[in-house]
């Protein structure tokens, strides 16, 4: 499972970085999304990997914390997802406005001269 997760994060981040270095704004936004997915998985993995463990403990009394998944990375990742979703949506709006104003989807607002 570790290997699969590591590969997934690597592939997502790698393709994300490649895409945000591309000149088209659509590629940049897809790259940012992929990068955000990779980072979110990474945050999740930093709470260690568990299979079939609940993050929420029952009320009252002392319980063995080793039987439960770490809830903190899960809440962190939830916050990170919400924030990156919102900011990406904002970026999308600006991107569309830039496309409308410049008439091209190049990130610099003009095509490179041949």
């Amino acid at each position, binding site marked *: 499972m570790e290997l699969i997760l590591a590969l997934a994060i690597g592939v997502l981040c790698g393709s994300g970085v490649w895409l945000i270095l591309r000149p088209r704004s659509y590629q940049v936004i897809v790259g940012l999304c992929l990068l955000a997915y990779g980072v979110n998985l990474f945050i999740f993995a*930093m709470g260690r990997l568990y299979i079939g463990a609940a993050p929420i403990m029952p009320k009252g009394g002392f319980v063995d914390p080793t039987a439960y998944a770490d809830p903190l990375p899960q809440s962190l990742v939830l916050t990170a997802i919400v924030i990156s979703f919102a900011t990406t949506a904002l970026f999308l709006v600006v991107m569309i406005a830039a496309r409308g*104003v410049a008439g091209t989807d190049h990130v610099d607002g003009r095509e490179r001269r041949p």
Partner: protein
Amino acid sequence: MMNEGIAPNHLMIAPILVPLVAGAIMLFYNDRNRQTKLVMGLVAVGLTFLASVELMAGVKSAGEQAGTVVGLYRLGDWPVPIGIVLVLDRLSAMMVMLTALLAAPSLIYAAAGWHGKGQHYHSMFQFLLAGVNGAFLTGDLFNLFVFFEVMLAASYGLMLHGSGPERIKAGLHYIAVNLAASLFFLIGVALVYGTTGTLNMADIGRALYWLDDAERMLFHAAAAFLGLAFLIKAAAWPLCFWLPPTYGAASPPAAAIMAIMTKVGIYVILRLSLLVLGPDAGPSAGFGAPALMIGGVLTMGFGMIGILGTPELTRKGGYLAIISSGTVLAAVGFAQAGGGPGMLGGALYYMVGSTAAISAFFLIAEPVSRGDAGKDENDDGAPAEDVADPLSERWAPMGLDTVEDMTTPASTRTVSWLTMAMCFALVAAMIAGLPPMPGFIGKFAILQGAVQDNLHTSGALPVILWIYAAMLILSGLGALIALMRFGIRRFWAEEGPTPRILALEVIPVVLLLAMIALQTVRADALLNYTRATALALLEPGIYRNAVLAGAQDVRAAPAQNSAPDPTAADDAGQDQEGGE
């Protein structure tokens, strides 16, 4: 040891809540009621300022009795390393006050017409303030991320305020860069949590002692990722390419308040590098200090070249912000490497003055270069603006029906061109660091601290300090040459009718200049304050003990992924405290 009695309790959250609530209430009003919103915004800023005065008085009065005291506010009253805390010390109190002081002039300037050139200017402005104050006050790394995002989201809106092709283009780059930087921030936060098992800044420093070598390497990677994210926001050299176009394209009041945003990046670097990686951090002590020193000096050099090379005045302001960032960053690096508190105290003093000056510069740059014939040499195709009326100036809606109205300025009084020239000269003198101004006093204090604290150890100053001292003076000279060239051309050499400038556009600059003058007159008091701040920052044990005072009981049952052996950590914390 419990400091609830000393700490200013619920007042601590006021600098976050007041702007947040004010901004939210404004949303219930029609956006055409800009004068109402302006008054509400000014009231909110005033309340924040009063709260910051109170907070600072609390920090100072307690400081006179027992060194330095750190106020703690537990959100939701959760026990300390588990819950999120707000922490107030001398540095945060100072920064919160500075934010409030910069906000009022920017708001007044916006009343001259800029707040009518787009929607919800005042709400976004207040949300920006809430995010900035939150970032200054929080003691939790992930909470810092959240406040950073609040601040950035508001800044995207403010940056794009007024619209127009140039702004949208610069805004696209600005948002993309900051989204990428936020992802770096998240990677760093996740790695910190993975290695130390905590996100409380004070607790991270404590957990750091018990990392083994493999974990320490990962932690250093985390620190590097976080550093990268904050250096992008603080605009250190290779990462500052986004700043001049963004700040140059933003509307002047937005750029003026965004001047504090680079200082948020610097604040976090200052806080984390001295608290977590400071002199007492064992094998991690001084991690990143060389990068800060060299990067800071290179940043100053880059800013100097940039300000000499760019013809456009608003872009020059961006390079000034870069110079100011580099100066403070290098001083932080020196302090982290053991350069002594004198330099850091001077650098903090310099930071307050230069931030105010840069803010004033952004406010004055636009009216002064209005209708400037020499401006058409820039390459981005913007035509020289011969429009005398500030309301129709630089105003190109993007074809979508986003803006329905333009409010008239709150007052139509105008001022003479001579007043502008005087203000410009004073701001330029401040930025260049000419003698009576705080820029000079700050640089002098930095140099004095550098010589005093570092000379006796080896008999000679280290080479990098020489380079830093030279850059400190040269960057001031560069700024002076660049601004003087502009001033001579614009105020003396140019003929023709002078543009019409509203009094509302000059009052904020005069206010900021009054602040700067006060900083000169009361230089002694402020320098004492910043020096005490530097001393406190170089003693991270004070901060750590104050935050973790009540933390013993919750760590009794260690969670699976928490830092190893919390009881030992507590003992060490108490040892340090005994050493005070």
